[in-house]
């Protein structure tokens, strides 16, 4: 009887652990993202990526449509190339679409903002492996302050 109680309690312990693990896996670390569906790859070159990281979100109007798969440096012109993994269900963006690196809140995470371009005749859709031409780099606070000071200095003279 006592032995049964021991086994029962250990069983509850194991179940609790599995529940904790599931919570961490699904709700906290969102392990499902990579399995959520097929995805295709787009590339974007930026002058400066700020503190963008792998697995940062790619968002369109607040909807997460993909993730940053990897960040590399182009071997020829030494600019950062960001590999974006976009979910297969979000497809058909025109070539004129643009991406920019945005920040959520003042100190928040950086993410890739996706802005679909206008679609008219002669503009193809983005396909797997395409490069996005229109990119806006991350805002670097130091540069902004530098510009601000420079402008002020100019005014006074």
């Amino acid at each position: 009887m006592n032995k049964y109680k021991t086994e029962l309690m250990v069983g509850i312990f194991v179940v609790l652990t599995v529940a904790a693990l599931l919570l961490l896996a699904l709700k906290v670390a969102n392990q499902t993202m990579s399995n959520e569906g097929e995805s295709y790859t787009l590339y974007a070159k930026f002058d400066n990526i700020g503190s963008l990281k792998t697995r940062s979100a790619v968002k369109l109007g607040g909807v997460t449509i993909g993730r940053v798969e990897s960040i590399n440096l182009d071997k020829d012109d030494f600019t950062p190339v960001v590999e974006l993994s976009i979910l297969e269900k979000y497809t058909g963006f025109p070539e004129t679409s643009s991406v920019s690196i945005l920040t959520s809140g003042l100190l928040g995470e950086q993410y890739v903002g996706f802005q679909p371009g206008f679609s008219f005749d002669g503009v193809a859709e983005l396909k797997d492996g395409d490069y996005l031409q229109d990119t806006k780099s991350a805002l670097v606070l130091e540069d902004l302050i530098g510009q601000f000071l420079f402008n002020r200095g100019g005014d006074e003279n």
Partner: protein
Amino acid sequence: MNSIAAIGASTLSRLAAVGRAGLMLFGALLAVPRLKNVPLTVKQLYVVGVQSLLIIMVSGLFIGMVMALQGYTILIDYGAEASLGPMVALSLLRELGPVVTALLFAGRAGSALTAEIGLMKATEQLSSLEMMAVDPLRRIVAPRFWAGMIAMPMLALIFSAIGILGGHMVGVDWLGVDAGSYWSVMQSTVEWDKDVVNGIIKSLVFALVVTWIAIFKGYDSVPTSEGISKATTQTVVFSSLAVLGLDFVLTALMFGIE
């Protein structure tokens, strides 16, 4: 001259103790393949795991709640309260989960292990096992060691999960952080292999150290009431220090270099 000799002697005796601890663990680990030991390990899992469960869950809940409260008051100044989720989750998964669990485990289960084995030694139960041709390393030490190794990561996972829920309770339900952003920013920040898995690895290392110290201190204790109480205290002190020291090393190895 005498003091130098004394330092030398105490160093040597400490080294010998480390050697004995190693031999003990080695002897216990040789006992892995015995099926007979599985029910014994389950029983120890109850003693070290289930009996520590309540203190772990309550502590986890409160630590998560406090972190949400503290984090909120700071983050709100920068309008970054959406980062509350990742702040709570990352601190729990990377640090507080494994470390606080290990400290509580040392105090709750570690000291009990030392006292139990020390008492078994004092009442000649270990000797008597040996005379019955039953190896106490296999019968007593091995099941307790494996139970500790299994229970600690489980407890740490439960601790972190409950802490995150506690943070949600305070941050979202009471302070009004948006529930969607609590979870989604957490999801985009927390990485499975980097944060969760590293936390589990930390926890496994702590489990090894704490359980090892606890069992060895009991096994090597002077079998008197004074000796056992001293060994019990040493278990808590040594394993707490070892956990905090190792935590720094592990953190440097895991998260130090981006």
